[in-house]
């Protein structure tokens, strides 16, 4: 079984496409669409890499990231953030909160795959 990646994103067709390409690359993919319960979902089963959308129903990705960075279990978890707004202030906020990588929509499958592989480190599958 490959490494685990959790995709927190509310756009079902994006989730499906990302899951498909990551699964083909040998990842075990979990998904979650609700912002309010996202932190619990991550802590219940901490993945090797987290993909986190900024605009989620219920709770912003920034809040979730902040909470995860405050928890010892996820302080160093590699997090790739996705946003449709590439504004400088969003990027700065994400950096300040301790994001590992920031990616703006529209991105390509190859970019996501490469980022996830990088974040997982040299021992990636």
């Amino acid at each position, binding site marked *: 079984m490959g490494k685990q990646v959790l995709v927190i994103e509310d*756009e079902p*067709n*994006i989730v*499906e*496409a990302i899951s*498909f*390409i990551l699964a083909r690359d040998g990842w075990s993919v979990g998904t979650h669409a609700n912002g309010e319960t996202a932190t619990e979902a991550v802590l219940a089963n901490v993945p090797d890499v987290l993909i986190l959308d900024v605009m989620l129903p219920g709770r912003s990705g920034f809040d979730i990231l902040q909470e995860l960075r405050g928890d010892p279990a996820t302080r160093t978890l590699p997090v790739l953030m996705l946003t449709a707004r590439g504004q400088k202030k969003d990027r700065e906020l994400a950096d300040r909160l301790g994001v590992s990588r920031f990616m703006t929509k*529209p*991105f390509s*499958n190859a970019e996501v795959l490469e980022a996830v592989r990088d974040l997982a480190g040299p021992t990636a599958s």
Partner: protein
Amino acid sequence: MPQSRLTGSRIRERRLVSGIRQADLARSVGISPAYLNLIEHNRRRIGGKLLVDLARELGAEPVTLAEGAEAALLGAMRDAAGRFPDQEAEVDRTEDFAGRFSGWARLVAAQHTRIEELERLVEALSDRLTHDPHLAASLHDVLSTVTAIRSAASILTDTTDIDPDWQARFLRNVGEDSARLTDSAQGLVDYLEAGTNVEATPISPQEEVAVFHEALGFHIPSLEDGSGEPQDLVAASDGLQSTAARDLAARVLERYRADARAMPADDFAAAWNELGDPGLVAARFQVDPAAVLRRVAALPDGPATGLVTCDGSGALSVRKPVDGFAVPRFGAGCPLWPVYQALARPAQPIRTLVEMPGRTPRRFTCLAISQAHLSGGFGAPPVFEATMLILPEDASTGGEALPVGGSCRVCPRADCAARREPSILSGSG
């Protein structure tokens, strides 16, 4: 005759510009240099044939020498020069320029007016782009959908051995997302097209009401004589799109009717002319002073007046501009307006002489007062409303005037302590 006093100055200015000696000019029209000197210093009146002769020698129209170029044109040209002080336009010779090249002068003035119009339009549009939630949401939607389509399409094209079930699934996704993208894109296009007509697309209920009020006028005869109903006026409007705007407009009109009943137009006009003081007039009609301020702004005759009202947060609910006192269509006004001072001093009447910026500054007397409404109950926090009547004054009105503006974005007062955001005016760097 005030013009003739200046005719001499114009002759002198014109002669010096043309480089003609006083003695030569005098000789050419058959008078002594001493007499011309008296004329040039406005010590002798001049007219008739001599004026025509001098005008001919100076290459000017007699009327230009006698009356000068049109005052409004000169004012506009000086304003235009003030906008770009670095260009060092010869402001002291404006009149000469306008007299000699009237077409060019009118062009300068027309361009100046056009620049001001465009700046106001840019202000309105940039406000919209910065603060428009609809636009932000639409763009987010488009980008998300494009991302989904791109991902799915790339899976379909790049995955040579794709399982038929997955293939069908992604094809379906692409189909769905394309339809969604079409809707989002179409919505965006419709919105932006509508946006080209700034006047017709208010973005907030307050702005809808402002447009409605401007169209209806601030004196409403059918509410004065009781023949009209506020609800009917609201229902008859095409401009009030949202329920919030309809409710707001109805409340404003209900209050107008109540004011009109308490202070019938003819009685009120007579009282206002006689007493000229909101406090005294309020006492006579047994109403609160704010109602009197509103009523003055609704008078059909007499000098033009402006009116603004705001709630405790400073949000403007009534925006009646008056020539020279710009009230922004949406967003906040100048923080120095007395209406906001009134909020800080509930129930205290405030009378302040203010000056609006401009190359020709304009002065206004502002009468403001804020009152508490206890419509939430006696124990609930009072709801404050401030009302300000704006009365234009002559430019010559003396005394200390408080420098204020319209809204920060179009205000040239660069070093204002109350500035909230930078101005877009080029002159205020």
